[in-house]
C-alpha cells in the first residue's frame, strides 16, 4: 500500500508514524498552529491545526497519517473556526500588539493576519496577570500566555529543569515557575535554556534587547507565517 493521503486534493506522501502535520509540513503545505513545534512531542491543545479527516474534525498535530485518508484543511469553514479560536486566544489574555516587543515575531499575531482576523469580536476578559521581572536576564509577561506549554515541554524534555508548568483549571489555567517564591529569579532558568527560545508569543522575553530589530523589519513583517513552511517546499 502506498504511503500517501490527500490534503485539499493534493497527494501527500508520509512515512510510517508521521502525523498529518509532519507530513504536510514536509510537503510544504502550511497548516496553522500555535502549540505545535517540530522539535517537541505534539500537545494538541490550541486546536488551530484542526483539519477534517474523512469528514470528522481532529487536530492534525496529533493524528497519525493513514494511507488513503482524505484531509481537508484550507477550506472557508475550517478557516472560520480557526479565526474564531484565534479571537478566543486574543480576548482570553491581554494582547496589545502595538506595545509588545514580540510584535512582528509573534506567531499568534502572524496567525491572526494569516487568517484575516480583523477584530477580537468577543468581549475581552482582561485577566489580572502580574508580570515577573525578577530574573536578571529574562522578563515573563504572563498577559500574553496562550497556554501552549512549549516552554513546559522544552524545559522538561530538553533542559531537564522543569522550570515551567501549568496549574489551575479551566479559564483559570496559568503558567507557574519552579520556585517557592513563584519568581523566575529563584529558579535555575537561564537565557541559554531551550525553554527561553520557544515561546510563540511574547511571554518569555530577553531583557535589555528591546527593538534590536525595528518593527517593520521583523520575521512576519517581511513574509507571512505560511511562508515559513511553504519556503521549504521550494528547497524540497
Amino acid at each position, binding site marked *: 500500500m502506498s504511503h500517501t493521503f490527500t490534503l485539499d486534493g493534493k497527494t501527500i506522501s508520509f512515512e510510517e508514524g508521521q502525523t498529518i502535520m509532519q507530513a504536510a509540513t514536509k510537503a510544504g503545505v502550511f497548516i496553522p498552529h500555535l502549540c505545535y513545534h517540530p522539535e517537541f512531542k*505534539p500537545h494538541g491543545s490550541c486546536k488551530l491545526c484542526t483539519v477534517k479527516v474523512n469528514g470528522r474534525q481532529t487536530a492534525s498535530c496529533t493524528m497519525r497519517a493513514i494511507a488513503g485518508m482524505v484531509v481537508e484543511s484550507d477550506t472557508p469553514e475550517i478557516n472560520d*473556526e480557526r479565526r474564531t479560536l484565534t479571537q*478566543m486566544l486574543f480576548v*482570553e489574555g491581554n494582547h496589545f500588539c502595538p506595545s509588545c516587543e514580540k510584535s512582528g515575531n509573534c506567531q499568534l499575531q502572524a496567525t491572526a493576519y494569516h487568517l484575516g482576523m480583523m477584530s477580537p469580536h468577543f468581549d475581552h476578559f482582561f485577566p489580572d496577570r502580574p508580570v515577573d521581572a525578577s530574573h536578571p536576564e529574562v522578563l515573563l509577561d504572563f498577559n500574553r500566555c496562550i497556554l501552549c506549554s512549549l516552554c513546559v515541554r522544552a524545559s522538561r524534555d530538553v533542559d531537564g529543569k522543569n522550570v515551567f508548568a501549568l*496549574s489551575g*483549571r*479551566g479559564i483559570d489555567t496559568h503558567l507557574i515557575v519552579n520556585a517557592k517564591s513563584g519568581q523566575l529569579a529563584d529558579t535555575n532558568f537561564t537565557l541559554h535554556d531551550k525553554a527561553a527560545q520557544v515561546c510563540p508569543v511574547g511571554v518569555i522575553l530577553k531583557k535589555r534587547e528591546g527593538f534590536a530589530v525595528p518593527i517593520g523589519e521583523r520575521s512576519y513583517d517581511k513574509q507571512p507565517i505560511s511562508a515559513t513552511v511553504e519556503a521549504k517546499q521550494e528547497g524540497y
Partner: protein
Amino acid sequence: MALNDRHAEAVAGIVDRVVTRYRRDPTCMVQILREVQEACDWISPEAIDRLQATLGVPRTKIEGVAGFYSFLYLQPRGKYRILFSDNITDRMHGNLTLMERLCSSLWIEPGKVSEDGLVSVDKTSCTGMCDQGPALLVNNLAITRLSEARIDEIAELVRSNTPLAEWPADYFTVEDHIRLPDILLGSQMAPGDALRAAHGRAPSDGLMSSNMRSWREGLPTGLGGPAAMLDEIKRANLRGRGGAGFTTGLKWEACRNAPLKSGQQRFVVCNADEGEPGTFKDRVLLTSYADLVFEGMTAAAYSVGARRGFLYLRGEYRYLLEPLNAVLERRRKEGLLGADILGIPGADFDIEIHLGAGAYVCGEESALIESLEGKRGTPRNRPPFPVTNGYLDQPTIVNNVETFAAAALIALKGGEWYASIGTKHSAGTKVLSVSGDCERPGLYEYPFGVSIRQVLADCGARDTQAVQVSGPSGICVGPAEFDRTIGFEDIPTAGAFTIFDNSRDMFEVARNYVHFFQHESCGFCTPCRVGTALLKNLMDKLHNGCGSPYDFAEIEKMNQLLQSTSHCGLGHTACNPVLDTIEKFRPAYEKRMTRKDFAPAFDLDQALAAARQMTGRDDPGAHIIAEEFGEGSA
C-alpha cells in the same frame, strides 16, 4: 521564628508519614496531597517543600496537580471548609438562600475565608445528593437535607469550634431511597457466588486464571474459565453504563488480547467518578451493593488477566472510603481477593481505592487514568486507547460502577438470561437516579425500553414541563417526547433523570448547567477553555436583561465550534442544554430579548454606580438612560 520552625517540623512529620504509606510513589500524588490536606487543612509551601524532597519531583509538578483539583487548596481555606452543592435541584430547594443565611450568620462573604481563618463558604458542583438536597460538604463530608434550622445549628457548631467528629451524626446520614428494584437492586447474591458460578461454568480443565497464560493464549489447556466468562459477557450483549454504551465484551477482549511488554500487566478500573449533575446511582450501588461491584471487577480481572484493580471514587463520596475499604478487607479474608482467589491457581487480584478531589472531567476515562497516575486530569490524545495503553501505558479496562455490578449478575446467571431482559440493542436493566419535581425521588431500576412517561408516573411527577435525561451532557425532553424510551436505540443515559414542573424557568436550568461546564472545563484546549467561559457570559448577559437575537447567533456559533474542535466530550456536549432549551422552551428565552438586534452587555448607568456611591449622589443627573442614546427597544 521558632514557631515557624515548629510548624514546618510538624508539617514535615505529617508529609513523611503519608508519603511512606504510599511507598514514596509519585503516581499516588493525588492521594498523598489529599491526605496531607486532611491533616493540615491545606497544602502549604512547607508541605510542598517536604513533598518535593521526599518524592523527588519538581515543585511545579506538585503545584500543577494541586492547582487542578477543586478540593485541593494551595491557599488556606479555613479549618471548616464548607461547600454548598450547586446543582439545579439544590437551587430548586433554595441552596443559595441557605448559603446566604450561613454567610451572614458567620459574617463572611461566599468564596472568602473568615478573618480568623476559621471557616470558608463557597459553592461546588453537584455532590450527588439530589434526592435529599439541598446538600453541602464540610471538609469533604456530605451533609444532606439542609434547612434553615440546620444551617443555624451548623453556624453555631462552627462558631464554637466544635470538632467535626462531634457534630450530630444525623447530619451525615445519606439515604439509599431505592424505590423500584429489579434484577440489580433486588439482588440477594452472597459474596463469591458469581465468581464460583463463572468458574463452575468452565470445562473441567479450566482451573487456571488468565494471569497464567501468555497473551497469545500460549497455554493449550486450562483457559476455559476466563474465556468462558468473557463469552458470557459477550452473549449478554452488555453495554457500558456510563452513557456511551460501548460493548463491554469487545472492550474486555481487546484488553485481554493487548500485547504486554516486559514487566507490564493488565488493569481493571472501576469508574466511580459519578459527577454528572443529577446522577447518584453509583453512590447507592457502592453503599449497599459494593460486593456486587467488586465481584464484577474480580470477574473482569479473571477474564482479562489482571492482577490489580482500582476503584476511582469521586472526592464528594469521601465518606464511603472507610466502609468500602472494610468490604475489601472482608473479601480478602473470604478468599475473594488476593492470591489464588477461590483456590484457582494464579487467580490473583486485588483492588485499591483512589479518591478524586473534585474534578468532573476525571469521569472521562483517559483523564481518570491521568489522575490515577497522580497527574492533572487532562483527557489524553486518542488513539491509543486505554485497552492497549492505559494506566502507566499498560492495557486497562475502565468501566462504570453499574457495568461491573451487571457483570457480576451475568457471571452468576449467564449471558443468555441477561440478554433476554430489555430490548434488542439494549440488554438488561438501567438504574435511573430520579430527582427534581416529584413525590418520590430516588433510584428506579427498569428493563431498557421504559418510557419517560412511565418513570414520571411511578415517581409521582405532576405538571411536568421537562425532563433532563442523563444530566446536562444528555438531552432535555418536553411533554411531546414523553413516549420516547430509555435505551441505546432512543435516549441513552448514564442514569440522571431530573424533572422540572411547570413552575420552573428552563432558561435558568440551562444557565446553571452552563456555569457547571465552565467550572469543570479542564482548560487544556482553547475551544472548551474559552468557549465555555464565553457561553457563560452570554447566558449571564441574557439573565441580566441584555439579550438579543444576536446572542442566539453567538450561542449557535459557539456550539458549532465546541462540537467540532473540542478535545473531549465535555466540550462536545457543553452547549447541549442551551440548544435543547432554545429549541423546546423558546418562550423562556424570548422573554429575555430586550432588543431587536443587539443589546450590549455593558450597562453605562450601572458603571456609574460606584461613582454615585462615592459622591453620595442619586439625583436624575447622576444617571444615564440608555434610550436617550438612540437604542430602539424591541
